[in-house]
């Protein structure tokens, strides 16, 4: 495949933005600036970005509890996100959602979801809207390896086939659901073959290779837009951090993460590929790195300065009975 330079720059910038957003979230969480439960997604950037680079603002995605990466990849405002996870009034969801409930309907981001298996049924609905209204838009749901066994997800696979919905089920297999290994929790050979048995094309891809993800997804996107129905994709990926910020990760092998960072870092791989092929120069990447770092600094700065929600916000955005 042939890649435009702009495309590569955007891909890299987005992955890098996710990486730094997550790394900074950890720092700010530990400083006490981010409340609640936070699940970061660094290590999984290539899946989010490889997928979302195919999508427009009118396509929609549904995400998980680990949704920062998906949100950034889908175009959510990074500063608005940082404000949101700090619970500020000017956050993307006015501080009412938080890390597990970032949404931006204008960007086709239908929401992070704190219920495991939350997105697939909802994305069927978004796909149904597109189909019923005669649009070419598609929906993409993200689900983890742990979430892949949840009944809501399995039901959604069947309904998507029955109604031939333009819905891509992206399963991010990062090998863990909290502290449980996929080899234990998943009775099936793998996620893809089980999803495929529901009656849709199913593929597996190395989720740490941006190019592999992007290219694998291409066929599924085309099929969905052309009325060919749903596809499942299992992306083999890695979680660089704990399940949540603060997780002591006792269930991991010694040096496991160190090894993963060395061998399966999607950003390193991307950099090696694009410089190796001569598509981008190291200096260009460095410039992006700096720009992204500046953006994240600014996001934190603005978020820390942003106002807390007004008490009156407690009872707005919902019909209140008494």
């Amino acid at each position, binding site marked *: 495949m042939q890649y435009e330079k702009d495309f590569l720059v955007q891909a890299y910038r987005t992955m890098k933005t996710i990486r730094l957003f997550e790394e900074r979230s950890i720092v700010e969480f530990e400083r006490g600036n981010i409340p609640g439960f936070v699940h970061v997604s660094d290590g999984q950037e290539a899946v989010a970005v490889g997928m979302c680079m195919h999508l427009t603002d009118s396509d929609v995605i549904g995400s998980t509890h680990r949704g920062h990466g998906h949100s950034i990849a889908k175009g959510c405002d990074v500063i608005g996100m940082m404000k949101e996870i700090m619970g500020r009034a000017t956050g993307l969801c006015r501080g009412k959602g938080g890390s597990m409930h970032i949404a931006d309907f204008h960007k086709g981001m239908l929401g992070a979801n704190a219920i495991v298996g939350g997105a697939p049924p909802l994305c069927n609905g978004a796909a149904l809207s597109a189909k*019923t*209204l005669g649009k070419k838009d598609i929906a993409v749901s993200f689900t983890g390896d742990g979430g892949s066994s949840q009944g809501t997800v399995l039901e959604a696979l069947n309904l998507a086939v029955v109604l031939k919905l333009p819905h891509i089920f992206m399963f991010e297999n990062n090998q863990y659901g909290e502290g449980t290994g996929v080899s234990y929790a998943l009775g099936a050979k793998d996620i893809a073959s089980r999803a495929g048995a529901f009656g849709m094309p199913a593929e597996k891809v190395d989720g740490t290779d941006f190019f592999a993800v992007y290219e694998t997804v291409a066929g599924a996107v085309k099929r969905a837009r052309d009325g060919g129905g749903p596809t499942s994709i299992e992306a083999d990926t890695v979680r660089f951090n704990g399940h949540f910020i603060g997780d002591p990760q006792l269930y991991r092998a010694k040096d496991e993460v160190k090894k993963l960072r060395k061998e399966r870092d999607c950003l390193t791989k991307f950099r090696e590929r694009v410089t190796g092929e001569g598509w981008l120069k190291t200096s260009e990447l460095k410039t992006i790195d700096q720009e992204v770092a500046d953006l994240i600094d600014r996001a934190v700065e603005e978020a820390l300065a942003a106002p807390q929600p007004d008490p009156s916000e407690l009872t707005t955005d919902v019909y209140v009975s008494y």
Partner: protein
Amino acid sequence: MTSKAKASTETTSTQSAPVKTYREAINEALRQEMRADPTVIIMGEEVSGGAGTPGQDDAYGGVFGVTKGLMPEFGRERVIDTPITESAIIGAAAGAANTGLRPVAELMFFDFIGVCFDQIFNQAAKFRYMFGGKARTPMVIRATVGAGMSAGAQHSNMLHPVVAHIPGLKVVMPSNAYDAKGLMLSAIRDDDPVIFLEHKTLYDTKCEVPDEPYTIPFGEASFNREGSDITIVALSAMVPRANAVADKLAREGIAADVIDPRTISPLDEEAILESVEMSGRLVIVDEANPRCSLAADIASIAVEKAFSALRAPIRKVTAPHTPVPFSPVLEQLYMPSEERIEQAVRELLEA
């Protein structure tokens, strides 16, 4: 304008309209709104029926026949039969509502919320609030409720208190055909998720229902009977029973207000409080189980906000704290009867 006044306005407007059943009234509301608004779709199990079979399409039109004839008019694209997967159905309705459609999803029996409750209470109900006002989720969940058909413990529940508890949901419980039509049109046009509960034993009941579309606003009770001796609040299939008791008492010169809240979330507190201020006596008739019920809810509102007017204890006439028994003999005892309502009223009048 007081609630009593509001209610009377509506009642007069129905004069000399054709008589229709509750089932027909809901069907008509759905048809009219689907004609008017191409974004309205229907989905659920057997809402048409016959998909993938060698026989007729529209073989059921809903197991109680409520959606009959809609698929032939609007096609399978807008009247969508689904597999027996309620989480997938309600989840799809919610996601579709977020993205431009106004789905009316059917849960054949409301007892089936057990397999899709997350989609209702954690998803659809919360989007608007937790996304800071960004989401609109204009969907209706239609479902049948109630005992009286020996349908057994898993097909006879009310469960409206469970959804009335949940912020973000609106809950509608029409007791007659006229209200059913007007409330359904309001439900479809509402931008929040609405739970629309149809009592199985009401489908064949009839009253005058105008042919033209009309809406009944949420949060406005109707006064079925008026009188200042006692206030009886009744819901859904309990309304005809309360009316019957009021009529019997009226012949003895006892005048009861019979208030049908019609929507329980929002609830027309004003109408209830206004009546209790006059009567000082309140009986609430609710077919649901008693604990944390709507009957309890209304009693708690009255004792909080109309305390000084109260002249007697507040009585709840409800099902017992048991599952619904299958045996028709026991089931009759389970549901609040006219006798039990009358007895509660008389006790309060003597108190």
